[in-house]
């Protein structure tokens, strides 16, 4: 993990030097001064997906919640199988930088054999202050499952951004 971080930082520096077209690179200087400007960077990495895993619907409508800590609460009349996880993102950048995080508050899902569902989304924080090893935030949600919800694979997409102010 640490090794990857180093690699990224060096790559960033190399690009920065190229991108800024440093004047020293053109000067035919006998002393051979080298200049490089290191740009501040931000990275966003998706570590895990928001997974409700598999649900067997019941005779009455119910909900399944996955907390931002990844703990699943299976509503009455439903059976929940598999391993649930909260979505998790890593943010890396300047130590001490405050990054705003957030995104859609709900998402609709379409089933492969018809049917739709909606899920609300919750975020573990509105902003994070990056430490020496960056920071992270999680996305959980509550899925509304209809009575005898049509079986199938349900998919949906939702937007998440990390914003520098």
């Amino acid at each position: 993990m640490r090794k990857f971080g180093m690699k990224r930082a060096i790559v960033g520096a190399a690009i920065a030097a190229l991108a800024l077209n440093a004047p020293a690179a053109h000067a035919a200087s006998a002393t051979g001064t080298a200049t490089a400007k290191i740009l501040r960077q931000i990275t966003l990495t998706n570590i895990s997906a928001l997974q409700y895993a598999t649900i067997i619907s019941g005779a009455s409508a119910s909900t399944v919640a996955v907390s931002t800590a990844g703990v699943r609460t299976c509503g009455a009349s439903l059976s929940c199988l598999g391993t649930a996880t909260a979505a998790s993102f890593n943010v890396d950048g300047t130590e001490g930088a405050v990054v705003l995080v957030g995104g859609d508050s709900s998402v609709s899902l379409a089933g492969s054999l018809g049917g739709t569902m909606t899920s609300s989304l919750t975020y573990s924080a509105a902003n994070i202050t990056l430490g020496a090893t960056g920071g992270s935030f999680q996305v959980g949600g509550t899925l509304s499952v209809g009575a005898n919800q049509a079986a199938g694979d349900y998919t949906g997409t939702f937007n998440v951004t990390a914003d520098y102010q």
Partner: protein
Amino acid sequence: MLRFFKGFGLLSVVLLGVVTVPVQAAGDLLVAPTRVVLDGSRGTEVVLNNIGAEPATYRISLEIKRMTAVGGLDEIAEENATPAERTALGMIAFSPRRVTLPPNQPQVIRVGVRIPEGTPPGEYRAHMLFRAVPDAAAAVAADAAKPAATGVSIALIPIYGITIPVIVRVGDLGAEAVIGDAWVAETPDGPAFNFGLTRTGNRSVYGDIEVTRPGANEPLLRARGIAVYPEVGAREVSLRVPPELAAKLKGPVRIRYTEDREVGGGTIDEAERVVK
């Protein structure tokens, strides 16, 4: 025969639960720098890098965002934009707008600015969004042969990105900020250190915060990149802190708000506060 199908159905439910777990979206990204300020005479460059393990297509766009009183950035639909916000979108040009990158391949995005004649002095701002375009293949095709008799499997795919502000300053602008009250409060996600920032003038203020106990050398808390944008006269800054730090922050402290180190690091405001 019937028993066989029953068994198969049960098995497939379990399998679905296992098979659908790793929905890993491609699109991890790096953006540098994290803030762009232009005066209209020249443009700049922003670097986008694919730091994921798979090739990804990224789209680059400009968004309007407005700061809220609690320091969030609300996304504003283009039809609700003010004339000044529209002006900002019009004066910032960038290229390319879409790029496909193999892993670890950086791409330079050129950012130019053209200020139309007669533009009133002021600060014009848009937020540049870098985001991976989701894979078309991610959608699951209807497969009637799949015997998911009672099971419902769910895949939620995040489309994630980074925004950085692109600020254009027209004319001679100035701004000041004053630090308000400071307090520690409990939030659903743990304790937070809060304080107010009041801004005057015709541009944003931006800088770093340092909270120090009088007599101590090392700051208790350091937060970089705190802005107050022109659309708000005041904002609250709320920073989550570990419980042990929250306890330490209570009592007399010195709060210092300084300009970014890249523009000199001068003090914007400094205040002694007793944190409740």
